[in-house]
């Protein structure tokens, strides 16, 4: 799986914040809790660094990061969705 070039993703991340969760980010909420706050054994993704979230998703896609289900899920996202989702959760309160 081709990782997203860091420079390109930085350009996207500079775009204005969206008012609502992109629908791709809604896919996370079923397990990571409303607003991505984390719940039980599933870690929070709210308020995390955008670049860290993008890097983690790319590592999941490439099977470089130990996972139960996230590798299988991350490979379904487009690069643009990963960036939009990371951007959204980075702005949520922890």
């Amino acid at each position, binding site marked *: 799986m081709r990782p997203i070039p860091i420079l390109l993703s930085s350009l996207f991340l500079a775009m204005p914040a969206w008012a*609502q*969760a992109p*629908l*791709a980010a*809604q*896919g996370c*909420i*079923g*397990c*990571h*809790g*409303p607003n991505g706050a984390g*719940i*039980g*054994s*599933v870690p929070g993704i709210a308020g995390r660094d955008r670049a860290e979230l993008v890097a983690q998703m790319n590592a999941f896609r490439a099977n470089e990061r130990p996972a*139960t*289900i996230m590798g*299988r*899920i*991350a*490979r*379904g*996202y487009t690069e643009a*969705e990963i960036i939009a989702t990371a951007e959204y959760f980075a702005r949520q309160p922890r």
Partner: protein
Amino acid sequence: MTHLLPRRALLAAPLLAAPLLAAPGTLRAQTQARLLVIGGGFGGATAANFARRNHPWLDVTLVEPKRHFVTCPYGNLVLAGTRQIGQITHGYDGLRARGVRVVHDWASGIDAAARRVRLAGGETLTYDRLILSPGIALRWGAIEGYDEAASEIMPHGWVPGEGAQTLLLRRQLEEMPDGGVVGLAIPANPFRCPPGPYERISMIASYLKRHKPRSKILALDAKEAFSKQGLFQDAWAQLYPGMIEWVPGNRDGRVTRVDARERVLETEFGTRHRVAVANVIPPQSAARIAIEAGLTDQSGWAPVNPRSFESRLAPGIHVVGDANIPGPMPKSGYVANSTAKQAVASAAALLRGETPPEAVYFNTCYSHVGEDYGISIVGVFRPNAEGTAIAEVPNSGGVSPRGNLPENRRLEALHADAWYDSITKDMFA
């Protein structure tokens, strides 16, 4: 009737409408649009909650006859004795607090042309867009002898209602003497929750192993293969050796007739299995209201637009949850949740004269197989370029890896519990 905007919407409307002041017609349409949701389960509760969170200009009414919703997910843990029914029962106060008008009544008929819904209590509701999430109907009589009366002796436990069916099956398991046979009849595809019967077999086995270890499970299946099959069968061999016999359709597993009084399950080729406890999961269709409104085709399920989930047979009605034909996606709670959000976003866009957003759908289904032992299937799906069908994204999704992976199994059991808490909060909080 009058349609008063919820107070929350009145407060939010000026802020949201500010960029639209140049277009008063649009503004008026926005602040007065009525979204009616029928059904307060995974599809409907998600739709109502999501609409108020993300489109607060919508006037949202939810019609649901029951005052409490008992989830199908985790019902199998009630059978195992590791959850109480109260832990999987949810109320509607959270949705009310979000400004949803919750009406506890039966929707008895839909007039799609007039955009009106009749309620059994006499009220008529009008809508601009309808989200219909009515769930399934059990096809009484599809298995000869299996009707509603028979289900009081041989519970289905597949439409929990107020929980009575789940509790009846639990009580029968408790009353069964050690050494008894628990028989299950499992239907052909499509049906609600494809891995559900096999999680149920596992959870019943976990109860029997602890309390009635000489007992057996006889699973009579209309199919030759099932969801997460390799993972389930690996776990059964490891955790419950010799306890579970699964009989596929091509080895005379299809149950075609029952005798409830004698507790006999009879298969296609006339084999009569007398069992101590019988759980009959019958063939299913979309719920009656969808059929009566003309929203279903000859399959018994409702065809929908892959992007908006609007009915292909009646405009203005988005059919979400288990009643629709979801392409390659399973009839699961997660898919109901995911598609309900897309349906609401599409309805909101169409009410504003816009195009529905690009769609992406998610599924995450965990199954408990034993104590600290969970497995999963996940999927990411999109409409094709022509918008005619839904397809799974290649090289993504799929089931947990097979093999000796005890840490993964423990983690997935924990993640399943987190999934339950998270998705029910997303629906009801």
